């Protein structure tokens, strides 16, 4: 990350030319974290562009030139030395809808391969990636997460990942404190003609609640010792800093996510215990990531149990629940920080407006006055189905 410590907005290239560095966000411009971060960075004077991912449209086309120099163009802009690239949530590579059906599989694979070429090549360029694509793919794996967490000294519930009925039944029957089940990926089912939905979440399991063996082979699952928890923790990792938030759910549900969506969860700023912070920083180093959202469960003895990490997890909702969280300001400070800067993110964060200011801005946008089309979202998302 060859960025000048004197002036993070500008960088010298080859010792002479000065160019303005920019933040490139891999996400469509209305993505719910890209939009506020772009807005806040621009308020702080930064140049920010969004690229929705590789597709056939002009703004999502890309060119990667490999010669004496390497040049990468994403839609209307070029990737320059010193840029910060936030690989937030780009669309899946998408081929032209008019391509012949006979060629569609080939075109899909070509788009996918080209996107991977772009994403991996970024790691070899003098830009800063949050996170590196290779690291993101690696740490996306839940089994890898649990193994690394344990190796770094974190407490991790015993876990079985399986589609084999015998080991699943055996795991549950040897667990006196109870077990939970969860999926590898989230999913939403929208019921036809009803207007209601069903959403995956972590659920309590006993041997008696298991269905037939055949059903256990319909989809692999994650089976885990149940942590009898007092509350949950959402931690946000930014570089060498961790910010932890206790999530208090009056319903004391196993899974706080939907209750958070319904506004039932209270967010409290808490200190990260030193031994937990050391372990997470070691984890980040081993995983080669600099950013992520980490979930813990805290038991009655105050022990923190690692549950999972999402290297592009949600964090701005914390500001909505507790304005003192200030994760928007901290993230803007983090992604624009000069290399090796030791200035606290809290201090640099004052360059940027709070999330509440963004909320006022977006509420006045005319496109936000329309109701949400859930059916259209279901049709477009790989994580949603009809039933």
């Amino acid at each position, binding site marked *: 990350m060859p960025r000048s410590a004197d002036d993070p907005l500008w960088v010298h290239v080859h010792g002479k030319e000065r160019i303005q560095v920019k933040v490139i966000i891999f996400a469509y411009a209305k993505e719910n974290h890209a939009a506020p971060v772009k807005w806040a960075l621009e308020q702080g004077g930064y140049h920010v562009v969004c690229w929705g991912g590789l597709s056939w449209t002009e703004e999502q086309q890309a060119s990667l030139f490999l010669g004496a120099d390497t040049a990468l163009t994403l839609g209307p802009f070029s990737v320059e030395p010193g840029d910060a690239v936030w690989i937030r949530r780009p669309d899946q590579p998408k081929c032209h809808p008019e391509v012949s059906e006979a060629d569609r599989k080939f075109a899909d694979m070509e788009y996918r391969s080209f996107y991977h070429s772009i994403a991996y090549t970024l790691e070899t360029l003098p830009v800063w990636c949050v996170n590196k694509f290779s690291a993101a793919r690696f740490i996306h794996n839940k089994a890898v997460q649990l193994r690394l967490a344990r190796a770094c000294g974190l407490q991790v519930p015993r876990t079985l990942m399986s589609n084999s009925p015998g080991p699943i039944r055996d795991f549950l029957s040897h667990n006196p404190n109870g077990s939970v089940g969860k999926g590898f990926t989230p999913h939403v089912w929208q019921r036809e003609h009803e207007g*209601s*939905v*069903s959403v995956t979440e972590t659920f309590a399991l006993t041997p008696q609640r298991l269905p037939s063996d055949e*059903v256990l082979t319909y*989809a692999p699952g994650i089976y885990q010792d149940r942590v009898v928890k007092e509350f949950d923790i959402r931690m946000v990792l930014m570089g060498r800093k961790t910010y932890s938030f206790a999530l208090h759910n009056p319903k004391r549900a196993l899974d706080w996510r939907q209750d958070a969506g319904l506004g039932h969860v209270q967010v409290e700023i808490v200190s990260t215990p030193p031994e937990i912070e050391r372990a997470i920083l070691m984890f980040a180093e081993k995983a080669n990531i600099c950013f992520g959202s980490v979930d813990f469960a805290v038991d009655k003895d105050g022990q923190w149990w690692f549950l999972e990490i999402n290297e592009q997890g949600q964090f701005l909702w914390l500001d909505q629940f507790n304005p003192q969280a200030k994760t928007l300001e901290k993230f803007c400070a983090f992604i624009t920080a000069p290399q090796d800067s030791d200035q606290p993110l809290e201090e640099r964060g004052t360059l940027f407006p709070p999330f509440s200011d963004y909320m006022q801005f977006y509420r006045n946008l005319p496109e936000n006055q329309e109701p*949400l089309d859930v059916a259209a979202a279901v049709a477009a998302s790989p994580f*949603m189905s009809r039933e």
Partner: protein
Amino acid sequence: MSKQDNRVLSRQFARDLTPQELEDITSGFFTSPHRDVTTTFCTLASDGDDD
């Protein structure tokens, strides 16, 4: 086998949201302005693609 018996385990234990709960969730910031339904439903903790 009944219609429900052949559903995957995660669906059998999925949380049902009523139309009112659905409306409450989708009127929040993390869906309403940005049309990112999956994010709010599924991903305060874990989401993203596996590509």
